[in-house]
């Protein structure tokens, strides 16, 4: 995957909520650092956040009632703030994913060379 960011930062900013909601839903519960690392791993280093911006995004999701945060003590004694999905968050995530899939399919269709022009 690309070594450096070669996409418009606004594109990632506009989809940060979807990425976070999807991962929190998939993992059942997760914390900021784990989410950042997971996004980096799954995108093979393509998505590069200013890591600090993930926390305001998580706090905003919480303020909007889409996720719920609570402190838990890990086995090593370290306290972390874990986020879990709410019903409202799950509903929004499904809508956003459906919208993204439709958008992505339409983009692919438009960008595919027309028959006889390739």
């Amino acid at each position, binding site marked *: 995957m690309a070594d450096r960011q070669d996409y418009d930062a606004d594109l990632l900013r506009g989809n940060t909520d979807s990425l976070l909601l999807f991962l929190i839903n998939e993992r059942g519960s997760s914390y*900021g650092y784990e989410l950042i690392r997971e996004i980096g791993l799954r995108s093979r280093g393509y998505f590069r956040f*200013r*890591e600090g*911006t993930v*926390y*305001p995004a998580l706090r905003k999701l919480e303020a909007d009632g889409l996720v719920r945060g609570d402190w838990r003590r890990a086995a090593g004694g370290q306290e972390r703030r874990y986020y879990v999905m709410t019903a409202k968050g799950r509903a929004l995530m499904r809508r956003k994913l459906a919208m993204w899939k439709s958008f992505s399919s339409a983009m692919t269709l438009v960008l595919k060379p027309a028959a006889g022009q390739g």
Partner: protein
Amino acid sequence: MRAEVDSYLSEVRSHLHLDPSLERRVIGELASHFEDKLSDLRAEGFGEGEAVREALASFGGARSIARLLYQAHSRGTWVETFLACQPHLLAAALFAAHRWHTPALLVLFSAAVIGIAVAGWARGRPAWVHTWAGFAFFPLLVLGWLGRGVLARAAAAVGAGVAIPAPAWQPAVLLALCAGGSFLLVRALRLAAKRDWVLAALLMLPQPVFGAWLLAVERYVSLGRDGAPLAAALQWDPAMARLCLLLAAASAVAIRAPSRLFKAAAILAAGVGAGSLIVKITSAEAGLWGLAVAALVSAGLLAAPALFAGRPRGPDAASWLR
């Protein structure tokens, strides 16, 4: 090197302007991130200094992170917005119904604003309570202003070495109330401004317009007497009701807007505008200079709490990372 992370987290905190307990939780979460990040970087072979530099660089600027965190938390709910508007709406109702001079309603209004302000202040000072606190000080300020003649006569008697005119308890009680009220007002402004001077400005919001109105009422009519003088004061009631609605709208923006700039702009614009308008309405001879002075005094009253702003940094910085 960990001192650099502590210093960074303290800088984030100094720009958060949130409730102190919420700030501790927010910074605690960021500190937990740095612990994980530094641990991973060391495992990758980074030296301590390199790891700290890399962790800080990937996190982003302290001010911009603090601004984003503030925006995520500063937007009050609709219930909080409703609560913040209530004292202005109650005052608007008193003026609209021409009932601000009814003693029973005034006592009820004063008791309600003082009671709710004290209860809210004691329960963690949510943002909405600052509008109630602004009105809670008004009865004391009015009492002090109206009783200034009694106080002046008592001071003159003490200065001349003669007995204070009877009843002597009046100036003593007035002095105690004024001193206590002023102490509480300054303390409330300091506490509010320490967190965010915009909240202190929200507390001061009713003062310019009500101060100018009170001066006008005192100048043109005799308080407490029925008849023509009172009717002259009542003619300003519709204007005062509308200005209270304007203050309620500004308070709603101050609670709901995500940006501090919008909050401050709404409070300053409404406070300065209402303070100038009431001078224009109540004083026919107020020219451009009069309005300019009214605007300046209003702006000064609203912006004065900024002098109390400034947040302690350092003492608890060492506790962010374990």
